[in-house]
């Protein structure tokens, strides 16, 4: 199971008819059991890339070869739940074959048991994000796509959810792609980091993190973080200088 991506370019035409380059060149491969994290500034084309990788956008230059028959689980930036279906129905809809025990375990991990019969309109954003996560994991994905799953949550909740994601990812050997602008999330969750440039996006650097997630100490994390920050900010200073 392996994802091979070679996006040569993606242009986007806005309502006024002007052309914008969103992606300049993103090439990478991802193997099963790996968590690849894309870190980049807001508006750099990350979500566009995700739409291409999820097979929602076919209008680009280049090639994406997704493993044949791979089940995709995706968490969009907004929860995108069906407001007219209960939490449990939302999850069961995409995973009709999931058995009750596994679903219960998943709801337990994400602390959703009390909300099974609620409608999404009755949930806070943090809860809705957890339902979106439950939905993505319920399909037992071979390819998991997470688009800023922790954005706009308070730190404590984000940290808890991050641990839950790490737990679920390590539990099964999933090919995971996480997009974030939060370096802390990236360093704690990723096996390999890809630093993206501002729009149009291209990969500035690829940083493997050899230490397994569970064995990363706070000191190691801080070291990697400062390395990443230096690279990101360094790039910005270079750009400003030129």
């Amino acid at each position, binding site marked *: 199971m392996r994802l091979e991506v070679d996006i040569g370019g993606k242009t986007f035409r806005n309502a006024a008819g002007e052309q914008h380059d969103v992606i300049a060149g993103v090439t990478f491969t991802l193997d099963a059991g790996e968590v690849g994290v894309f870190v980049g500034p807001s508006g750099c084309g990350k979500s566009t890339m995700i739409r291409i990788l999820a*097979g*929602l956008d076919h209008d680009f230059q280049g090639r994406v070869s997704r493993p044949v028959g791979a089940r995709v689980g995706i968490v*969009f930036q907004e929860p995108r739940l069906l407001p007219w*279906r209960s939490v449990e129905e939302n999850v069961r809809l995409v995973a009709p074959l999931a058995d009750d025990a596994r679903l219960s375990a998943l709801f337990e991990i994400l602390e959703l048991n009390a909300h099974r019969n609620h409608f999404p309109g009755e949930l806070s954003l943090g809860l809705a994000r957890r339902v979106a996560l439950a939905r993505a994991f319920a*399909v037992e994905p071979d390819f998991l796509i997470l688009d800023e799953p922790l954005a706009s949550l308070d730190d404590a909740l984000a940290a808890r959810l991050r641990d839950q994601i790490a737990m679920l990812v390590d539990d099964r050997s999933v090919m995971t792609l996480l997009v974030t602008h939060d370096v802390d999330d990236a360093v704690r969750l990723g096996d390999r980091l890809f630093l993206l440039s501002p729009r149009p996006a291209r990969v500035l650097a690829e940083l493997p993190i050899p230490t397994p997630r569970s064995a990363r100490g706070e000191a190691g994390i801080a070291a990697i973080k400062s390395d990443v920050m230096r690279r990101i900010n360094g790039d910005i200073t270079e750009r400003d200088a030129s």
Partner: protein
Amino acid sequence: MPRLLSFAIFLASWWIASLLAGDAKLPSPPTVLTALIAEAGSGALFFNLGATLARVALAFTLAMTLGAAIGYLMGRVRLADRLGDPWLILLLNMPALVVIVLAYIWAGLTEVAAIAAIAINKLPNAVVTLREGARALDASLDEMATAFALPRWSTFRHVVLPQLAPYIAAAARSGLSLVWKIVLVAELLGRPNGVGFEIGAAFQLFDIPLLLAYSLSFAAVVLVIETLLVQPVETRLSRWRPRAA
């Protein structure tokens, strides 16, 4: 309770108006009730109401099914919208009378002609509403369904249909009231039974109590259907919406 009060006010104002206008112009409630009981006793009332209801049910179902399908297609497929739009505008603005008369001329004074004419009158209304509904479908939920590879039927049932439900309800609500009105005209012009026919006959004989007896029992049927069928369905469809305080 407010409904009962509203009914009492209606009855009272009718009675007062009849006292002011005289029994010849506006018969009082007891006079109409006598006519109603006589009509019900002979069985004619139920026969005619039944005939009208059957026509309404058939024409309504036909127009809603066809109209919803065409409207959905026009909302989703640009070419279908471009092709269908002139027809739609023509049908929307065609007087009901023209459609009914033409249907009777071309298909004879038959049941098929009557039902088709009623359905054609309601059809554009359903098409327009459902087209708006299909245009307003949330693309982000569509993407979600595609990304999770939901089967087509499942997407339609759980993602598309609930979004169309308010539009279907609106089309049904306004369509039903349109059909109630048109069915009587169609019956008046070319059917030997039904509420419309009876009202036409009562008009020619200036039998105002009979005319009112039929009009009111017809109105009662509409009210009952609205209360027992249309409103509960609407409530059920919108149960997921957070209630306003």
